[in-house]
């Protein structure tokens, strides 16, 4: 069994800070104290392991997994890409979970009151495990933008929420994927919470004509990176004495 080592320290310059007043909800939901930094122990470098048998056959097909009397309305797209670590190595068997609004920007959630209608044939969530190359793919309807109560005229760009569980609990990540060319990206307070423009660009999926299916679906490519493990360790500090 292979030894698993510490993770590289997280580069907080590329993540949004906790307090971003322009994103108003963060004002009361951000800690005032500094985080306390821990050197990794077994608690951080291990994490839950998931199996294919836990998922259903249509779990990565948002076009069909809630279709009741017909197909959902909207742009048929495939989203695909690779999940790697900071060393560029593929992350195998990572759990990727996604959720999104329908083509009109309406979420199937008891708390969403937006007047755009629910699509009776669209649920809006899916999940999958990456393969041995770290590859994942799912099929869906392109989500619409929607208004939200931040400032009264704030609109979210079209986006798909992503949750990733790699092989360590300290890699746990939730993020959002945006679509190439969307003019709402530039004015969104949630996007702008990330201060580094290069980091923002990594959240924008590119149109991938090569992977599109003729007369059927366009494709978008979205790669993700989770924290990487240190390769060298001269003393077995993580689980006791060498």
């Amino acid at each position, binding site marked *: *069994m*292979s*030894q698993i080592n510490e993770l590289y320290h*997280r*580069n907080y310059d*590329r*993540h*949004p*800070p*906790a307090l*971003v007043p322009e*994103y108003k*909800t963060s*004002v*009361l*939901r*951000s*800690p*005032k*104290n500094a985080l306390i*930094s*821990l050197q990794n122990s*077994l*608690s*951080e470098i291990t*994490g*839950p*392991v998931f199996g294919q048998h*836990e*998922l*259903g056959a249509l779990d990565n097909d948002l076009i069909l997994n*809630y279709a009741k009397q017909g197909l959902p309305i909207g742009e048929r797209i495939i989203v695909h890409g690779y999940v790697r670590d*900071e060393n560029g190595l593929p992350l195998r068997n990572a759990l990727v979970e996604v*959720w999104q609004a329908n083509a009109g920007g309406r*979420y*199937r*959630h008891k*708390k969403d009151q937006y007047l755009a209608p629910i699509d009776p044939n669209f*649920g*809006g*969530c899916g*999940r999958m495990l990456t393969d041995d190359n770290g590859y994942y793919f799912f099929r869906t309807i392109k989500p619409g933008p929607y208004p939200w109560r931040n400032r009264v005229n704030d609109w979210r760009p079209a986006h798909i*929420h992503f*949750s990733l569980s790699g*092989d360590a*609990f300290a890699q*746990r*990540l*939730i*993020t959002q994927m945006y679509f190439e060319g969307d003019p709402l990206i530039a004015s969104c307070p*949630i996007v702008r*919470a990330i201060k580094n423009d*290069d980091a923002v660009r*990594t*959240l924008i999926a590119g149109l991938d004509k090569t992977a599109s299916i003729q007369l059927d679906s366009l494709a978008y490519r979205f790669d993700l*990176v*989770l924290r*990487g493990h240190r390769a060298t360790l001269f003393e077995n*500090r993580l689980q*006791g004495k060498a």
Partner: protein
Amino acid sequence: MPQQYLPETPSQTAGPYVHIGLAPLAAGFDIFENNFNQVLTQPETQGERITIEGRVFDGSGTPIRDVLLEIWQANAHGRYNHPGDQQQDKPLDGAFRGWGRSCSDFETGHYRFETIKPGAVCGRDGRLMAPHVNLWIVARGINLGLHTRMYFADEDAANQQDPVLNLIELEVRRKTLIAHPERRGDELVYRFDIVVQGERETVFFDL
């Protein structure tokens, strides 16, 4: 050539509708055959059954009612169900993954996990860590998931020696990580309230 590293994908808030993806039953619809949930135990799981219960509060003292929490913990013997855990002296428990996910109630803000009390895990340099549960919290308004740990008030001797608790300089802040037991009929409940901001703010970690 210098080593080129890929930068980690930046985090974004989970938003108010996180339940759609991670707990669709809570969002109000049934789509997956198998749903991840807050019950970590099976009938064959070894160890003392416990319930972890609490609320998460914002800077005004109001419970956050759209929060999602995950826990990760060792089994009753103090071993994680993961190939990276090489503590060969401790048995694995095939009936315990050690991971669960819970949403707070939309009305009351209460969350709940049904699990077992974990054993002590070996820490760095051979120093034993006190029994603890790792928690991760996401919600609308939280830009990057918050990591914390829950320790047990009835493990005082072990807590005194714990290398992570001892990193926290202020005694008053250490206390924010200690859950207190209460008996409720047959149930042993550890109450663990989390304060995201303000007085008695919970300690959060940069792992």
